């Protein structure tokens, strides 16, 4: 994974696959840390599964024998002096928190987070995705539900809608001076 937005897309896709109806992605920018948090209300995992998901040769899928998403983000977090924390309960959902050393030389760049967020907001049918970015007092937030409320009967999945949201998110993050380096 060459940038963090790829890891984020991957972790959010895990939540979609776990049949989550609500997913919240929060990116918190601190002086020394970059914290990525994904919370969902999907099927959740039991204790035994939770201890094995960081093993790249464990997956809940039957079509292939590897599951690389969480092991890869764990490796990235740990190589920057950070960590990966997982909390989950069957029937309640899962919370994934990756803490990365913001100034660490091995931290991958954020990548195109505006495009990634726009694609996640519009591209997953039946999922309400909340995207939040926090840095000091600055907060930017947008959700699938808000966009759908504005659009009414217009299909949220239209390419023109995603394209608009991508520009809107980028401009708002710039306006708030939120920078990921």
């Amino acid at each position, binding site marked *: 994974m060459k940038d963090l937005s*790829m890891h984020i897309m991957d972790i959010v896709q895990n939540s979609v696959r776990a049949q989550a109806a609500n997913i919240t992605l929060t990116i918190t920018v601190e002086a020394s840390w970059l914290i990525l948090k994904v919370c969902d209300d999907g099927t959740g995992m039991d204790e035994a599964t939770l201890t094995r998901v960081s093993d790249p040769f464990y997956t809940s899928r039957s079509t292939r024998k590897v*599951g690389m998403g969480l092991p890869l983000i764990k490796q990235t977090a740990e190589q920057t002096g950070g960590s990966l924390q997982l909390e989950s309960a069957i029937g309640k959902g899962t919370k994934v928190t990756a803490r990365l050393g913001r100034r660490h030389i091995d931290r991958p760049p954020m990548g195109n987070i505006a495009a990634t967020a726009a694609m*996640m907001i519009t591209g997953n049918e039946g999922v309400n995705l909340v995207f939040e970015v926090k840095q000091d007092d600055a907060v930017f937030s947008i959700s699938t539900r808000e966009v759908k409320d*504005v659009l009414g009967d217009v299909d949220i999945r*239209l390419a*023109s*809608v*995603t394209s608009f949201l991508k520009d809107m998110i980028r401009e708002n993050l710039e*306006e708030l001076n939120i920078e990921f380096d």
Partner: protein
Amino acid sequence: MSKVKSLSDLRKMRDELQAKVSLREKSDHPEKMVQVKVSMATCGIASGAKEVMNHLIEEMDHRAIDAVVTQTGCMGYCHAEPTIEVTLPGSAPVVFGHVDNKKADEIIEKYVIRGELVDGIIPVNYETVKENKKE
């Protein structure tokens, strides 16, 4: 300084989009939209599926093609990622493998706009439960 886009601007854009939707609904063929699904599992993402999806959205928007672009899980073609499934109105879905931005342009130009098949199609090797029951 230029004005930052907000949801109010999206509300204005909605009126234009609504006009297009009602035009489509009044036509003889209600399914007029091109549907594109991008396989977005770890294998696809690591191979560049996110960039391809972003490019497809930009190009469809730029060329004013009435299209919905969504994500889907692993289609099982990890060896050929990034993979996309394109469904033209009234046609069966076609899966393309090893799609990069250049191939995406070719798919839009030749397959989506002109209906010509292009290299890189992954042959269909699955059937739906409904199709199986018919036989």
